[in-house]
């Protein structure tokens, strides 16, 4: 079995994050792909009917936008920080700025502060126009440093 850290170091070597993202069932279920696009990590949630939260408008469920923001922040963290396992979410604050229309949604995260154990990430989601974000979030994640205590790279 390929361990999480093997998967991540391979992805960092090849510049292809798809294998990490595809290993996560929930992202497959939502149709979220996250990869390097023109030198930056961009998350994309392909529109699908099962993402709708309001059939009258129609609009995407706020939770799906939250999941895209969180996942994009996680992948940004894996890319930049050293962690022996997937970053663990501690807090997230999501601001919903515009309703999510039934089209593809994108997200991009920026690490605000990286410590040894905790990372703070700001992340923004948009649809057709990047200058008109539909949501933004700030999140804290816990890392597991590669050291004597956290060397455990895989096993449950």
């Amino acid at each position: 079995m390929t361990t999480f850290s093997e998967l991540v170091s391979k992805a960092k070597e090849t510049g292809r994050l798809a294998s990490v993202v595809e290993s996560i069932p929930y992202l497959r279920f939502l149709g979220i792909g996250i990869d390097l696009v023109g030198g930056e990590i961009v998350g994309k949630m392909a529109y699908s009917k099962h993402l709708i939260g309001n059939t009258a408008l129609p609009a995407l469920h706020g939770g799906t936008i939250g999941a895209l923001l969180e996942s994009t922040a996680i992948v940004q963290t894996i890319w930049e920080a050293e962690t022996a396992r997937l970053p663990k979410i501690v807090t997230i604050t999501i601001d919903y700025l515009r309703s999510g229309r039934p089209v593809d949604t994108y997200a991009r995260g920026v690490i605000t502060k990286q410590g040894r154990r905790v990372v703070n990430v700001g992340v923004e989601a948009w649809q057709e126009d990047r200058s008109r974000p539909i949501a933004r979030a700030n999140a804290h994640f816990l890392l597991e440093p590669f050291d004597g205590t956290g060397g455990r790279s895989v096993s449950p």
Partner: protein
Amino acid sequence: MAENAPKEANDGTVSESDAIDARISEGVSAFVPHNRALGIHFVEAKGGSVTLGLPYDDKLVGDPVTRIIHGGAITTLMDATCGTAVFVRLKEAIPIATLDLRIDYLKPAEPGETVHARADCFKITRTIAFVRCEAFHARDSKDLVAVANGTFMIFRTSGTDPKGGAP
């Protein structure tokens, strides 16, 4: 999971609270495709608070090593529960939208366990609703997984202000 269809009381009539529960349940599932896709369902409405449930499912897994469900699934459950609590407080079908949601993840939900979220809309003005929410393992409401605070925008048309005067 709660029985969602209105139950007949002993005298053969459908009790008022069961009819309300059935309406909330319909609002949670029938009109919200993504709630249905995740299996989010109505559990109960009691004393002003509302409880929804999210059964464990392999498709919700966010960490393939630990099989723990993705934080996003908890976010969705809490957003849905907070929104339902606002609808219950409004007592009428007024459109609402989430303004912000702040979630603290206290501990991972255990693989295989159903998660419940209970929300209480504790303050409502003409345009804004304030909600707090707790998510916990269904078998023990004290076994908290996450807590959240949300604010919602209420799109009242003029003349539907029940209290009058709030901002």
